[in-house]
Each structure stands twice: as structure tokens, then as C-alpha cells.
């Protein structure tokens, strides 16, 4: 076959036209083989180069090589266009409905009692209180006698105690009616200065709208050399501000009676009940929140602490009640039912 520039330019024109009109990746590959393959048209033309004169070679060599690379480039470019078109086409068919719901991950949470307990511990930790605990089945000695509540005293009856059957040694174990036995244990086992916060389960044989036979209490105890009621007031104000997340709080002390404290004080917090939602720290109403007082000298003595040297205060309040006041749960009894709707609603996320 004889070579002429026209042949080359015709081939080029034809191939360019073909490349630009092909819209199928396989056809483009076939064209590449038929043009650039070993037996392809350009290769065929290049076979002529061997037989040519040096001059012709100089002329046709660059021309043919130029054609080869130009066509290769065009095919590559066309290939990319075609692959983009193919991808677009595929994507078009792959649509998903983004509004479909995803698979629900179960949401966990901690119980309001745990939440409030953690909050209370954290707040008192700021005042250097330590978290103290004790068993829930206790002795009469720790629950009553050491706390200056004698056998026949009406105060002992007021506790509505759950008892276990009398033991062989004559003692009657009981479910602690308050977390005060933890105070007893702490005083018996450590030396002042003592600053503890003791949250936990407590039990009384009582059940109505506002009482459940099991409930949660938190008690605080501070025993040092010069602790007085002023420190109690400070501690409680500090707690109320932090717990209820308010800047100001007004407390009212009322003299009261607890066998284990003298003087004994009930503490009210100023609140507003005029609207549906109770607001602590505003208004003109009072809400009783806790009992407290200076630890009775008899209690200190019973627990191995010299009342002439040390003194201090104790206080106790209901954790469940704090939870209800802060987070607005209406009914105490629902706290312990573990109704899935209740725990789903009132439990707290931990993250």
C-alpha cells in the first residue's frame, strides 16, 4: 500500500468522526483495537515506514506517530466521557428514599433517683463531704438505740419499722428507717473531722399518695471542733442553690424534734406555688425540705466521740422528693414500678 498525506488525513478524519460519535464503551474499545491494535489501521500504515527512504521516513514517521498518539488521546478522553455518562446513568437508577426511618437504637438512661443521688454527691463533694454507705438490714442498736431513741419512746413507734423475726440472741434486725445508721458506723469507725454524705434506700411500713414502703434518703453529717448551726445554714443554702440551679435561696428554720439532734430544726425553702409549676427561690410560700440539727451529745457519746471536744450537725432529706421537686414527677409510687413508659420518659441520658 502506498502512503500519502491524504490517506493519513482521511484516516484521521474518519477515526475522529467515529470516536466522537461512539456512545458505547465496548464499541470504543473495538475501535481502539481496530485503529491502534497490532493489526490496526494505524499500525498497518506504520509497517510502511520500514521500507521507506530516510527522507520519507523523516516525513511520515512523525506524522504517523502524531496520528497514533492523537487518536489514543481522543479515545481516552472519549472513554472518560462515556464512563461518566455510564456512571451517571447507574447513579440515576440507584435512588434511595432518604425519608425512610432508620433502625431505632434503644435509648438507655439512669433513673431519677440515681441522677439526683449523683447530683447530691457531686454538690457535697465541693464542700469536701465523702460519700458513705451501709447495709440496709440493720440492728435496732444502730438504727435506734445509738441514735438516742429509747425502746419505749414514741419516736421509735413513729418510724413504722419493718422488722425481721427475733433472733436467737433476742435482737430484732430491721430494715433501716433512715440512713442514720451510716452516721453511726462512720462515727464508730473513724475520727473527726468527719464530713459525710450518706444517700441510700430506707424503709418504712407506710404507703399512700406520698409514701412508699421503700424510699431514698440522703443524710449529711459534719463533726468537727467548732461546727455550729451557722455552718449548717451555709451548707444547706449552698446545696439548695446548686441543686435547684438558682442564684438565691431563702431558708426558714423551724425548731423541731428529732431524738438524735439537739437543737433540732426543720428547714423550709421559699417557693412559689401560685402557678402550676413549683418554683423554688421565689414567691411567698414555704416548702418543708429537710430535718436537721446539732448532733445530740448522747449520740456522739454512744458512737465513741467525746461531746466535750467535738460537735457538729446532721441533716436528712428525701431523694425521691428532691427529684419530684426539681424535675416535676407527680407521683412517688410510679418511681418503683419500672413502667417502660415512665422510665423511658423520666430517666436521664448519661451522655
Amino acid at each position, binding site marked *: 500500500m502506498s502512503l500519502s498525506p491524504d490517506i493519513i488525513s482521511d484516516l484521521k478524519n474518519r477515526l475522529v468522526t467515529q470516536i466522537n460519535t461512539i456512545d458505547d464503551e465496548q464499541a470504543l474499545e473495538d475501535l481502539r483495537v481496530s485503529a491502534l491494535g497490532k493489526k490496526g489501521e494505524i499500525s498497518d500504515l506504520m509497517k510502511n515506514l520500514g521500507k521507506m527512504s530516510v527522507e520519507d521516513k523523516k516525513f511520515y514517521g512523525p506524522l504517523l506517530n502524531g496520528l497514533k498518539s492523537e487518536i489514543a488521546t481522543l479515545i481516552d478522553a472519549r472513554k472518560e466521557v462515556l464512563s461518566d455518562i455510564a456512571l451517571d446513568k447507574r447513579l440515576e437508577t440507584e435512588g434511595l428514599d432518604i425519608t*425512610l*426511618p432508620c*433502625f*431505632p*437504637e*434503644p*435509648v*438507655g438512661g439512669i*433513673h431519677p433517683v*440515681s441522677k439526683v443521688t449523683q447530683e447530691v454527691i*457531686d454538690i*457535697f*463533694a465541693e*464542700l*469536701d*463531704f*465523702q*460519700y458513705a*454507705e*451501709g*447495709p440496709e*438490714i440493720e440492728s435496732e442498736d444502730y438504727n435506734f438505740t445509738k441514735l438516742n431513741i429509747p425502746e*419505749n419512746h*414514741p419516736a421509735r*413507734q413513729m418510724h413504722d419499722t*419493718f*422488722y*425481721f423475726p427475733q*433472733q436467737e440472741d433476742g435482737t*430484732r434486725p430491721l430494715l433501716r428507717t433512715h440512713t442514720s445508721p451510716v452516721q453511726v458506723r462512720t462515727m464508730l469507725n473513724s475520727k473527726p*473531722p468527719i*464530713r459525710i*454524705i450518706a444517700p441510700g*434506700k430506707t424503709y418504712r411500713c407506710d*404507703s399512700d399518695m406520698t409514701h412508699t*414502703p*421503700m424510699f431514698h434518703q440522703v443524710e449529711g453529717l*459534719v463533726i468537727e471542733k467548732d*461546727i*455550729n*448551726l*451557722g*455552718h449548717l445554714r*451555709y451548707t444547706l443554702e449552698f446545696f439548695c442553690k446548686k441543686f435547684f440551679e438558682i442564684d438565691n435561696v431563702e431558708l426558714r*428554720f*423551724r*425548731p423541731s*424534734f428529732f431524738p438524735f439532734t*439537739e*437543737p433540732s430544726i426543720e428547714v423550709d425553702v421559699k417557693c412559689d406555688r401560685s402557678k402550676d409549676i413549683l418554683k423554688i427561690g421565689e414567691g411567698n410560700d414555704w416548702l418543708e425540705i429537710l430535718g436537721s440539727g*446539732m448532733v445530740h*451529745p448522747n449520740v456522739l457519746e454512744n458512737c465513741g466521740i467525746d461531746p466535750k471536744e467535738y*460537735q457538729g450537725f446532721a441533716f436528712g432529706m428525701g431523694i425521691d422528693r428532691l427529684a419530684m421537686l426539681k424535675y416535676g414527677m407527680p407521683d412517688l409510687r410510679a418511681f418503683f*414500678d*419500672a*413502667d*417502660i*413508659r415512665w422510665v423511658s420518659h423520666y*430517666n436521664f441520658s*448519661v451522655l
Partner: protein
Amino acid sequence: MKLPLSRLYDFLETNASLQEIIDQLNNLGLEVEDVDNPEDKLGHFTVGKIIAAEPHPNADRLQICQVDTKEGKVQIICGAPNARAGLNVCVSLPGMYIPGLDITIKKGKIRDIESCGMLCSITELGLEGEDNDGIMELPETAKVGEKVIDVLGVNDPVIDISITPNRPDALGVYGIAHDLAAAGLGTLKQLEIPQLKTSFDSPISLSLEHPESCSHFVGYYIKGVQVCDAPDHITHFLKAMGCKSINAPVDITNYMAYSYARPLHVFDADKIGTKLCARLAQAGESLEALDEETYQLQDNDIVIADENAPQAIAGVMGGLKSGVYETTTNIFLESAYFNPDYIAATGRRLNIISDARYRFERGISPAFAEDGAKIAAQMIVDICGGEISHVVVAGKPPLPDTAYHLSHNTVQKLTGVEIDFTKQEEILRNLGFTIINQGKKLICVPPANRPDIKGEADLVEEIIRIYGINHVAAQPLPALGKKQPALTPQQKRIERVRNYAASRGLLEAVTYSFTEQSKAALFSDNLLDLANPISTDLSTMRPSILCGLLSAVSRNHAQGFKNNALFEIGRVFHGISEYQQPRYLGIVKTGGKSDSHWLAIQSDYTIYDLKADVLALLDNMGAPITGLNIVPEAPSYYHPKRSGAMKLGKETYATFGELHPKIAKAFDISGRVMVAEISLDTIPMPKVKKSTALPKAKIHSLQSVTRDFAFVLDQSVSAETLLRAVRKSDKKLITDISIFDVFTGGNLKETEKSIALRVTLQPTDKSLTDAELSSIMDNIISEVSKVGGVLR
């Protein structure tokens, strides 16, 4: 304790308003629980006078009344037959609330004629009384516009006070008045003890047999009485106190209890013998008391007995037969001091609740036995007539003789409030203390009516109570020398694992620590029953943390909520010692994460979900989970073939698996229930690390190699056994083994299973040669063959 204001004024002269009295009571520690003030409910009802009453043209029974009211003349249609011109009536005008009818009056037309109010009957005001088919007829002396409650004499607010057990003195109106006066709210009226005209010796004599229980016994014989009803001021008072009126002598004893906290008893002197003795009961004695119940007495009950038998359970309740009734003509009035401990024990054992017991067991004033009897005796003869004998007395009053010292700085030391020492002395004197002032020290003998005063701290309380406890000002806590962390490591990790469990999608529950005995028995033979449970379904301490959770899941199922993922942290109870109340974390899961869902990747919870939970939580607590043995040793309330225990040595850290279907059935839960229990107290604390630095990450530059195997094993060979065999074959290079298929059936024998696993080998210093690789694979196959596994 109810406090009608009118009775308070019997003892206290004061100009204080009701609100001031309430506030002061609260400040004194006499907590006001409630105030029933007729003014609040009925103060808006005023007197009106009917000027004219004419028949209603459209209704036979109605009258058109022109009424003169505080707001001028108004027209009111009235249906009462007694409405007539000239009558003083109780008027309510539009906008006023009628408590007896629970309506608010509106202006309106009755049968076409305008009516601008209502004329009220006594019951329409919510007051007790007879309507006699008509409106109230108020006295002619009443003035138009005057408050009806004033005209009726019922404008007497009643304050309900919660009296703490240390204040027996405040169980009488006089004691409360005394406290208010000491606080400066008024002047206490001088108590007048009548000079009795006594004219004869009592035919009844008194004696004491047991001074420890009864040390003072006083009596008056009153002859020739005519038992009648008590006058209104006494019966009204009793009614306000919630006490039924019987007859004058009995009512007077109750009046004495409520007025002076001095319980007394009256006997029909003709129904008892002539020798009354306060003694302990003898076993076998019994008494039919005034409540018509017969009580069996024991040898620590105090009784008032005559020659033959007990006639009263002393300080608790009198006998039915010797009581005073209309037929009584001779009375024996008894007044005594009984030891509070005895009264409390008897009252509690016999379960008798009486005003006398309530006061005696809290401690009455021993000084007031004779004076109280004198007041009552005089009242009885004033009302019922008769003559009073000379007093008969046995023993003497156990008056307080212990003195307590108050140092000048004690009040300041305990309360932080500085009160002038002379002011302190004045307060105590006003409260009735007898005081010797020694300059820097007061020596104080408490008044007889304050048995609660037993030490210096009590004196401080009295002083700050009267001075005003709200003088206590906040003082920051002193800094501590040596600070301790608030939480111990164990406390910290329990709070952490609680939060972690919640973050894994578990909802925390708090359930009762006690449960039904039959339910508890499903978990243990060793049960702790309460002696006095509140109900049978809360009678036994839970032996497993699962008890309450399963009851909750059962209720949730009944409500239609089948998907449950709950956990609880709490104590379980194996015995009464503090070491037999360990803490557990329990998990219960039923159903799955979701009901049917279009993604369809939902499946019900399996024991492997629970295993994953347990391992994750144990890991969170720092338990050495890679060294744990997982063995089929869960308790019998688990499915015998779908449960396990995670142990280290002999210690069980956790059990998990499917609940035994029988237990699920007992809790009325259908479907499979997945449960786990983690023993929080047995897991050792992880070792304290010496440094905060983490171990170096093992990131190798050489590529790891994986090889897959499938072994046929006997069904009884556990996956753990297989994994251990593989691990053992090369402890250095094998870094991971994952089981990707477990297969039974097909051409395997029924006793066989196939486990397919992928082993990852990680060369550390040089790539593995083919020879090395095949030698490792041979080792694996050989180790597995030792546990009976054959390469498939």
C-alpha cells in the same frame, strides 16, 4: 393537737392577729399544719332583713322578698316557707360561693322575675344544724351587714398543730399559751386553782404497790351529783378537738386533758370497792374497757384495781362497768402520775389509742396531779352539784430535781448566735425554769411539765427557740486540713458502670427490695421474711436482683410492651449480717430492639446480647475479662442449656443466659427472657497503675496473614475449647481468631457440628515463608485434633 383560738384566749391575753399567732407557733417549733378559719369560708355571709315578702305571680311556693342588705335593698326570690317580712336572714349576693351547695350565686330570673341573691339555710353554709325546711332565722338583735358567723358565734378559727413527741406540755392549750407568752406574744393569765370546800372523808382509800410505775395517786370522792350534759363551751371545745361528748363529768376529764394536758379519770364510786390500788396487773386478769373490748392484762400493765379486780387500765382506758353514766350519783375522781415507759408498752401491746395514753406516754407534768384534780372537782360540782371529800393521796409527785448547767458561751458555741447571758436567763425563767445564776454559769432546774429537758443542749434549744432560730446566720464551713476524695474507687466505678449500662441502651429501674414470698422462693431456698410486711406481695427480701425487674417486665408485657431492656443496681439479701447484702447489677431483656421494621435487621435478644452486655460492663469495671472462664454453672432459675457463669478461679463475677421457662411462666411473661446478674462486690479493683502512660500500640509494618479453617467437632465440645486449642498452637503469631460460621445438619452426624474460623497471624520481624505458614497450620490442625476436631 387542735387549738381553737377562743380557748387560747382563755389563757392568753394578746392582741396578736391570727397570722401572727400562726407565725409565732411555727417559730416556736409548734408546727402549724392547717388552719380552719370560718372567716375564710363564711366571712362573706352577712345579715339581711326582709322588708317585704310577696307571693310570686308565677309560682305558688316562691316569694319575692325585698331584703335590706349591706349593699342596700335587693330583690331575692325565696322558696323557704319561713321567709317573711321582719325576719333577719343570712344573705348571699351574686358572686358569692355557697360551700354547702358548691355553687356560686349569680344574678338571674326565676320564673321571669329577677332575683339578685339567695337567703341561706344553715346547711347551705356547711354548718351543722337543722334546717327545719327553711332559711336561717337570725336573732332580732342582729344588725344588717353584720357577719353571720359572728351572729352565730362560730367565728372561731381552729389551728391544727403537729406536736413533736418531746413536747407533752403542748398537748394542752395552756402549755401552748405558756410558750406563746414566753415568746412575748401576750400575757399568760394567772392560773387559778380553786379552794375546794371539802366536807367529809372519802370512803375510798388509795394505795400504791409499785412506785416505779406509779408514784403519785390523788383522788376526790364527790357525792350526790346529778349527771347532766356539759355546757356548750365545753362540748364545742371537745367537738373541735374531735372528741365525742358523753356527759358532764366525763367531758370535764377530757376538757382537762385538752386544756392542761392532764388526763383524769372518773369512776362511778358505787361500782367499785373501797380500796383503790395502783398496781401491776397479775397474769390472767382482764378488763372490759370503755371501748367495750375485753383486754387480757400482763404483769407489766399498770391497773387501778379495787379489792376484787382491775377497774381501769391505768393511763390508757377506764373500765366499762365502773364508768360514769346518767345514773351515777357518786363519783370518784382519780388523778395520778404513771411512768411513761409502762404506758407506752401497754398501749402498744393492747393497741389502744386514747388521749390519755397519748399524753401519759409522752410524759405529763407530775406537779399538776392534785391541782388538776381540784380544777376538775370544782367544775363537776359547779355543773352537777354534789359535795367534795377531803383529798386522798398516796405517794408523792416525782418532781424534777436534776439541775443542768448552762455556760455563758454554750449557746454561741452551738448556734453561732450571740445572745446576752441575761437574756438567756430571762428566757429560761419565762419558760418556768428555776435558776441559780453563778455569773458565768446558770444552774437550771426545768419546770415539771418539761420532761424532755435533760441536758445543756436542751437548754440551748429552748433559748434559741424562744429567741428566734432564724437569727442563725450562714457561716462558711472551715477548710479541712487533709482532703479525701468524695468517692472511693469502688463507689466511683459503680456510678461509672451505672452510666455505662445506660449508655448501652439499657433503662435503669429502681424496684422494691422486697417481693412476694412465692416469687422469692423461685430464686433461693434461703429466704428472709419480714415479720410485719406491708402486704403479702412485699413480704420477703429479694434473693436476686432479678425479682423486681421481672415483676416490672411482667407488668410491661401486660400493658402490651414486649420490648424491654432494663437494668437495676441494688442489694440482694441472703442474711441479716452486713456481708450478706451484696450489691448486684441485674439486666432483663425481652423481645428485641424494635418491633417489625422495614430494615428487617431486627431480631429478638439472645443470650449473646446479654453476654456482650456482661462482658462490656465487666470490662468497664476493670475485671480481667480475657482470663474469665465461661462455664455452664448458672443457678437453676436459668435455662439449663442456655446459660453460663463467668468465673475467675472460684469467684463468680456474673451469670447470664435465658431465664428458665418455668420462672418466666411464674412471672406471667410469655416468650424468652434474657437475664444477667453481675456481682458488683466480688469483682476485684483493678491494680492502681503507676503511670498515666498507656501501653504502646502494636502497629506492625508487616502485613498480617489470614487463614480459614472449618473443623468438625462433637456437639459437646465448646467453642471456647476450640479457640483455646487454636490459641495454644502458636501464642506468638496468632493475634486474632474469629468464628464466622457455626453449622449443624447437612451431611454432618447429629452429634456433630462444624465451626469455621479465621485465624490472623501477625509476623513481627520478618514475613512468613510458605514453609513456616504451613507448619503453623499443621500445628493448629494438630492442636484442634487433641480436642476431637477434624479439619473438614
